[in-house]
């Protein structure tokens, strides 16, 4: 049986960040990185741009073979883990071969969640999580006129935009009354929706599909309210869920994801998890959450890598803060932190500014004079500084009014003073 000191399963942001952290502290011991894909590492986040053609598929790779050679990393492609044996400290691959490890990082990410809609299983439909998915969707584009995107989350909206730009007539079906409900409130979402409508994307909100039926190569969706949609292509983007099935019987504790502590360690002493697969402490909640965003995967990966390499500088994970950035039709929206509804109501202040003409929106949520959330559409502020202000729980003190008036400049000054 092959054996490696560090075994990393997965090759996206959490895995690469962990690898980087390990090699900063430990230049020598063997590292093996497994990916189920047949390619160099890439990010799921870039895939909508591969679909649209903005990103050339051969230019999206995050590392090359030279990097792995230089850092003495054994990078194995096409290696899907189907079983983990924590007693024997070994994993079993799909081809039956086994790899033993001293320390294991699970960074297997998430997979598309398919809704239980009658007729879906019998259809030919697309999802968008792997490079192969993206290339399949891109290949289909020239042959289609109408598309249904199921789900108005980030992946669905990105895909809808790129399909529309390719001249396809797109309908987005979203169960919630607004798109991107996880990150933006109704007013901000409405602004984003307006831009989509103006660009010819049909948004069916508060709607759900009752059933699907095949129509030759195409499909027909019947909505709960009786509307019928015909399309040449169906993209299912109703969310993702951590990939944990292969952990059945492994002894690794899972909830919705793999449960980890503040060093990203699971209940098994030599197994860690990071990124979209991990369920870790939230910054605003007592419960462990799946944050499922790229910057958090990078953070978690670093902490896991440092802990695995026993880097004495390892710090506790501060907890997941919901955040995201979203660009659409040349405009952009940013969300950092939580809305007032997620907070205990004492000491909460909310300031909201909207300018419909400019399609500009800014909302700031403070709790006890500290930043809890900031949300903008076409508003200028630095999300990285805002995130840090939240994590450091910086008391805005006398700067509070200045911050509410001019968050970007005030936050930059606070940053320059506080983390010198």
């Amino acid at each position, binding site marked *: 049986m092959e054996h490696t000191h560090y075994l990393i399963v997965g090759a996206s*942001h959490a895995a690469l960040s962990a690898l980087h952290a390990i090699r900063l502290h430990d230049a020598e011991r063997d590292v093996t990185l497994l990916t189920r894909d047949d390619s160099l590492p890439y990010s799921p*986040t870039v895939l909508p741009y591969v679909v649209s053609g903005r990103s050339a598929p051969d230019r999206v790779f995050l590392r090359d073979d030279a990097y792995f050679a230089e850092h003495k990393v054994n990078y194995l492609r096409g290696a899907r883990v189907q079983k983990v044996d924590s007693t024997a400290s070994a994993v079993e691959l799909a081809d039956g071969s086994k790899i033993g490890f001293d320390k294991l990082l699970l960074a297997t990410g998430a997979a598309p969640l398919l809704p239980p809609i009658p007729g879906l299983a019998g259809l030919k439909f697309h999802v968008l999580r792997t490079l192969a998915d993206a290339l399949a969707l891109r290949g289909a584009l020239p042959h289609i006129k109408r598309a249904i995107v199921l789900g108005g989350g980030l992946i669905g909206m990105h895909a809808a935009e790129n399909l529309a730009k390719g001249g396809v007539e797109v309908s987005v079906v979203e169960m919630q009354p607004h798109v991107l409900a996880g990150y933006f409130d109704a007013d901000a979402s409405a602004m984003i929706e307006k831009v989509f409508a103006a660009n010819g994307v049909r948004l069916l909100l508060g709607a759900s599909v009752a059933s699907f039926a095949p129509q030759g190569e195409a499909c027909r969706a019947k909505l709960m309210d009786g509307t019928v949609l015909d399309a040449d292509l169906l993209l299912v983007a109703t969310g993702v869920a951590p990939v944990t099935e292969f952990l059945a019987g492994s002894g690794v504790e899972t909830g919705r994801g793999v449960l980890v502590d503040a060093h990203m360690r699971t209940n098994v002493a030599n197994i860690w998890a990071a990124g979209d697969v991990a369920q870790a402490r939230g910054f605003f909640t007592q419960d462990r959450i799946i944050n499922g965003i790229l910057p958090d995967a990078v953070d978690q990966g670093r902490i896991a890598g440092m802990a695995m390499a026993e880097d004495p500088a390892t710090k506790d994970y501060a907890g997941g803060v919901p955040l995201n950035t979203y660009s659409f039709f040349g405009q952009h929206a940013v969300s950092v932190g939580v809305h007032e509804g997620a907070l205990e109501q004492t000491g909460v202040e909310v300031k909201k500014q909207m300018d419909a003409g400019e399609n500009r929106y800014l909302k700031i949520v403070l709790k006890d004079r500290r930043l809890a959330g900031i949300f903008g559409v076409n508003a200028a502020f630095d999300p990285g500084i805002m995130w840090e202000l939240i994590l450091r729980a910086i008391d805005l003190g006398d700067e509070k009014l200045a911050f509410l008036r001019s968050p970007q400049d005030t936050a930059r000054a606070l940053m320059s003073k506080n983390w010198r």
Partner: protein
Amino acid sequence: MGAAYETIHFKADACDGCNDCMTACAQAKTQTDDHLQSRIQIVPSGEGFELAICRQCGDPECVLNCPAAALSKNAGSGVIAWDGSKCVNCLLCTVGCAYGGIAYDSVSSHVIKCDLCDGAPACVKACTPGALKHITTGRIYNEVGNLEDLFAPGLSGCQGCNTELIMRHTLRRIGPDVVVATPPGCIPGMGSVGYNGLTGTKVPVFHPLLTNTASMLAGVRRFYKRSGRDVMAVALAGDGGTADVGFQSLSGAAERGEEILYICVDNEGYMNTGMQRSGCTPYGAWTSTTPVGERAHGKTQDAKNLPLLMVMHNCNYVATASTAYMEDLYEKLDHAIQAAKTGFAYLHIYSPCTTGWRFPSDQNVEVARKAVETNFVLLWEFNPEDGLRLTHPVDNARPIDEYLETLGKYRHLAPEQVEHIERTLANNLNRIRGFVAAKGTASAAAGRA
């Protein structure tokens, strides 16, 4: 050896908010005066100003956050480069940056960031108040890091002492063809001459008496020269061994023009033997032999100006240096090494003593910097041809209190003692400026054979 990189340093108190840096950046990058497109952003903060700019982080989070491989850190220059042909405008890099160093620009419709202008930042050139500084010290470390460290690992200096830094850098630069003399003091004390029959260096080292360092080195250099070998003779000595009991042989060797590089590491006293005063201990300082009590209040005499005494020997090269200004120190080290091939070179390096001066061990370089910023220490160099020149003139010196109050050895000073120190510093400065003005006259005997 890992790479060290260049960076732009911001001194908030010096910034007057003129925003010339933003204009210069916008012009360099967009040929406009639009401050919004400047990669450097000055923001008001209370009465003063603060800065947002890319720090070209050593371990950049923006790069790790980029899903499109559009950001990368150049291993040579350290600059984080943005590739517009790969960028997908997702703005996740702006989430990763906690410094506001990469931000969305609505005019160009993509993120913008500082690229250090290929090593000559336009903003720094435009900064007249001197709030921005292009720190290029990394170049030294990149170059010297690849040279062999000729001292053994694990020398046991006091925590926070800069002497080990001075020793290692000096010998790295000089290289292996050298004989080193370390007279009694901190330098042999921390293990450079070695223990149990082993030396602390990878080159020949010996331990002269306090009195005869320069004369022994003179013999060593002459011996090798006669046998046709170009071996440097280098002293790494303390201020006590140099200014006081070793001065007679030093003065003689300098006067004869012996081909020696004599480095005095000045910590203003006999620090390894219990912190006694030396001729270099400044006025007012506490030492164990200039105690502070009911009647005594520290040293009652001024320090002798040893480097200036060496100028008066008309040495091939004389300079003062500080580890807070490594580029300056390195330039002088290079000049001194060169000068020692044909005559006497003397380098006087200030070494704040964490133990004997009583300050926290993480503050050494800060103390050294304050000494220069208050004109307590003047950085200059001299050679017979060009005379004396200040290499780091400080025009608006900080008040001397800022230096004195960081050091326990001055804690007892009465106002009149501070005034005395101020007078001494003013005299020193005037005297040095006099030498600067009288360029060339001290070098009547230039071109010693």
